[in-house]
């Protein structure tokens, strides 16, 4: 059951990456990043079954980081939205100039 789990993980990751690239909505990009993190978590859990409990610990840490990232990221999105009245990332390009 290991290989199917890893392939599922790969599929989720690819879909997440695709989402990051093709969407303009900052919140959906965020969701896709969470999707990628979940894909990795899945691989960790699947492999931990065969290597030891440490894999699950890493998943725990990843979840914590994801929670922190969501808190800060959403705060940034709110802050930006106040300024631009939009969450379309194409509009956030002042750093280019």
């Amino acid at each position: 059951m290991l290989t199917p789990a890893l392939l599922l993980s790969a599929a989720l990751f690819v879909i997440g990456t695709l989402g990051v690239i093709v969407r303009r909505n900052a919140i959906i990009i965020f969701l896709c990043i969470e999707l990628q993190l979940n894909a990795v978590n899945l691989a960790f859990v699947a492999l931990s079954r065969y290597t030891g409990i440490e894999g699950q610990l890493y998943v725990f840490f990843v979840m914590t980081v994801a929670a922190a990232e969501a808190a800060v990221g959403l705060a940034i999105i709110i802050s930006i939205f106040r300024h631009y009245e939009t969450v379309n990332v194409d509009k956030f390009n002042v750093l280019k100039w």
Partner: protein
Amino acid sequence: MATVESTVTALALPMSPLTAQEAASWEPVLPGLIVLLPLLGFLINGFLALRAAAASSAAVRSGNEWDPFAGAATPVTHRLPTLVGPGVMLFAFALALVNFIGMPDDLQEPVVRSYWSWIATGDLRIEAALQLDQLSAVMMLVVTGVGFLIHVFSVGYMKKDVGYPRYFSYLNLFVFFMLVLVMGSGYATMFVGWEGVGLCSYLLIGYWFSDREKSDAGKKAFIVNRIGDVGFLLAMFLIYQAFGTFDFGEVFAGAEGQLAAGGATVTAITLLLMLGAAGKSAQVPLHVWLPDAMAGPTPVSALIHAATMVTAGVYMVARSSVLYALAPVSQAVVAGIGVLTALIAATIALQQYDIKKVLAYSTVSQLGFMFLAAGIGAFTAAIFHLVTHAFFKALLFLGAGAVIHSMHHAAHHAEGHLDEQDMRNMGGLRKYMPLTCALMWIATLAIAGIWPFAGFFSKDEIIWYTAAWAGAESNPFGSLYAVYWGVALVTALMTAFYMTRLMIMTFHGANRTGAAGAAHLHEAPRVMTLPLIALAALSVFGGWINVPEALQASFAGLFGVLPMSEWLHHWLEPVTHAAAEIQVAGFGEAAYSAPLGGGEVSWALASTVAAALTVAVSARLLGTRKYVAAAADSGPRAGLGRVLHDKWYFDEAYDAVIVRPLLRLSRWCWRFIDDVIIDGFVNTTAQFARLAGWIMSLFQTGQVNMYAFVLTVGVLLVLGTTVFLR
């Protein structure tokens, strides 16, 4: 005067027999200190010179010109060198004398004192070591003895110079390196001294560096010497390749066994060494720097460019006598260069008006004689002439220095510009400087080779040995040697002529300085004349240390009165006998008659009579000639005289053949290689970086997704290589 007497007695002392036990257990007395004393003098004087420089720049900053002699009391920086400079030399000379007297007669091997391991890498071991043997003892005495006298003279000559402490620090440093050169126990140690004296020579030629011409002369000397040094270095590499060491003892001991006599290796080594010697000793074609080196202070010319440094090449050839004896071709080349140099320099000296230029070309010419001697294998004769030449040429230069010193005062008061070194502005100086005149006449007779002065014995020995080896049974270059002999004879007579010309133009006839200047001509102070007297005594008696055996019973040895029959020859025997044996094995015994017949005594008589006649006749002829002051005379207009006056156009030829093409090549390198290729490469690199930057800037869209895309691709590339190339 005390030093002169002690020198004479010292020369006599080692004649007394010593037991073998003493010889075996001989300990040199503080040989390292002999070298260190001048270095100490350099450090003290150098410190004073730095103090003086600080005082000078402080004065300049406050807007004044610094004159250390303006105040009532001369500052300590300009008083102490008077004591330190000659003082360290006196002690060094005394130590050298003690070692010389103590050195046993039958010392066969050099005594080597190793101080520390200088270079140890791979198979190469170079010790910082000094060696004492008969040859280095003689050189040591000449360097410290003549050096001391010239230091004393300098006190008077340079007294009023702003750079007085700097002058003495350079002079002391020079003596230090010269002693390293003659006492070093291997080619590497010798090379340190070799380069060091070159450095000091450069510093002292350009001593008055604010004068463009003089600093250029220093650079010329340095650069021409580099050409010779390339030869020396290559020779050292070959020596290392052949012997695996630079140590004199090991090289000479192994030379006969490891190198084929007349083989390519030993010939290459000796020819390259000769290139080095030609650079240092101003032999054709590298002689051009020495006449220009007269830009330095006159005592420097006496010490470095007449008595000691320029003879380093002769010393080096004599030191390598074993190698030269193994390479007959190199010997013929050395002798040929020597005799050619002697002739060319003598002809140029005939037509010079600058008193120091005449002496400079005379020095080059006499050095040529020394190389002739070294080339034909008469190494003792070469060293003998080196020693006597150091005496009388130092005397001539210092005498010229006294004259210039006097003329300098006159020039201050003369109307218009007065070249203080041009003999056309002199004339009749005997009236003002009788002592200098008399002493310089002694030196003139000595260099002309007139019995019983020192030059007679040494020069006659060179000419005689050339004749004798020309007649050796199996000398392959016998007829060439005969030509050398003939040229040497002619050159010796030219020497007599141009020296007489110098004396007549300077001291005799009518005075041409002009009334205003002539009133200020005067005899040199005591501190300058005393060294002259000492050197004059040496010029008279110095030749008696090596009266040839064949001549001892004749007129030349006062019919047996002069005691020291071939003393120098016996003294140097341990150093030269190996080479002598090889040479006899190759050439057969030297003949006992000249190529035109006649024995040693008759040729000696003939040469001294011819020289005396030349002096007398030319003095008589030139004495009646009317010279005009330099301002109204432009020298010989055309013909051979003009060619000689212009020094055979050596400088012009070098300028056309070497300097200008080199400049053009350099300019081409600058315009093409540097500007086009190297700069082009650099600029192209910069353009490439700009292009790359421009391409990268295309990815900076400001869109987050684009960055995510690039990031992903980058991660995939890294990950992909690890995954797929697993």
